[in-house]
């Protein structure tokens, strides 16, 4: 089975949620996480493989843009037409209050310091939202 954590981007809150789910998040400094705030991964649209859980399920993180619900709906439709079910691929949407702001930060061009600005604000916002993300993940685990 595949588990995909969906977010507006695949390299911020959904990535952290996937690491929390796998029990890999040891500290609040997210910079050590692979692909964290690496917005170059986003245009590819490919789910980022995070690891395997204890049951052997592959865990991914995926960004679907600012309309999370629409992204989820499309992927659910795609699963049906490809002949799969939620037992083959489970979607775990992760929503936080500042997700639109985070998505907007990603639009700042690199030559204007977009990467550093995104990293700086993402750290602050995601630390504040960490409890909400953990709560989201716990809901899925139960």
């Amino acid at each position, binding site marked *: 089975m595949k588990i995909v954590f969906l977010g507006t981007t695949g390299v911020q809150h959904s990535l952290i949620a996937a690491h929390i789910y796998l029990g890999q998040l040891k500290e609040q400094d997210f910079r050590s996480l692979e692909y964290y705030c690496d917005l170059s991964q986003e245009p590819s649209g490919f789910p980022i493989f995070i690891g395997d859980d204890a049951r052997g399920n592959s865990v991914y993180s995926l960004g679907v843009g600012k309309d999370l619900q629409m992204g989820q709906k499309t992927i659910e439709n795609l699963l049906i037409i490809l002949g*799969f079910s939620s037992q083959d691929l489970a979607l775990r949407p992760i929503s936080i209050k500042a997700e639109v702001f985070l998505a907007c930060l990603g639009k700042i061009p690199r030559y204007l310091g977009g990467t550093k600005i995104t990293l700086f604000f993402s750290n602050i916002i995601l630390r504040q939202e960490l409890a909400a993300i953990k709560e989201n993940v716990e809901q899925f685990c139960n």
Partner: protein
Amino acid sequence: MSFRIRLRQRLVYLCNPYATKRSFCVRVMKIIYHCFGGSHSSVLAAALHLGLIDKNKVPGMSEMMKIPYFDKTTNADFGSIRLMGIDEYHNEIYVLGKKNLGKRYANILMGIAEILGVKEELLTVDCMSRVNWSMKIGGFTSRRMGWVSLGRPVLGKGAEAAFWDLVNLVEITRMKAMKKVQVT
């Protein structure tokens, strides 16, 4: 190809009322035409692919309005993958409205298909490159603003102007689909 995927293909064949002996050995593809609203260019392209309209003659507005989903979608249809029909090679033809998410949305669909091991079965076609300003303005006025009587004539003119570009896109897609389909 894993046993599970092959088994699923056999089951799809057995459940498919259009299946022939040929489709038992040929991979059936899912072709998704997508545009902003999934209401005009993608529907027109899918209709061309399925032969619902003649590709040698520019259709009039009344003819286009007979196509299922053409200028009939609502906001709730964004993100829904809707079946338009099955072509002569048993490929399933779908339409999708993805707002302004661009090529990335197609990549997401392909990415999901890839992790499920069925990338070869899916073909996504972005119709936005063939959409002109008249179609954009007419479509926006008709669907988003709800001013159908004002937007539809503008849309019709735009669709007529974009028709041959869409025919070209569909022909390219059919070629791609034929190349991608492999005997298993």
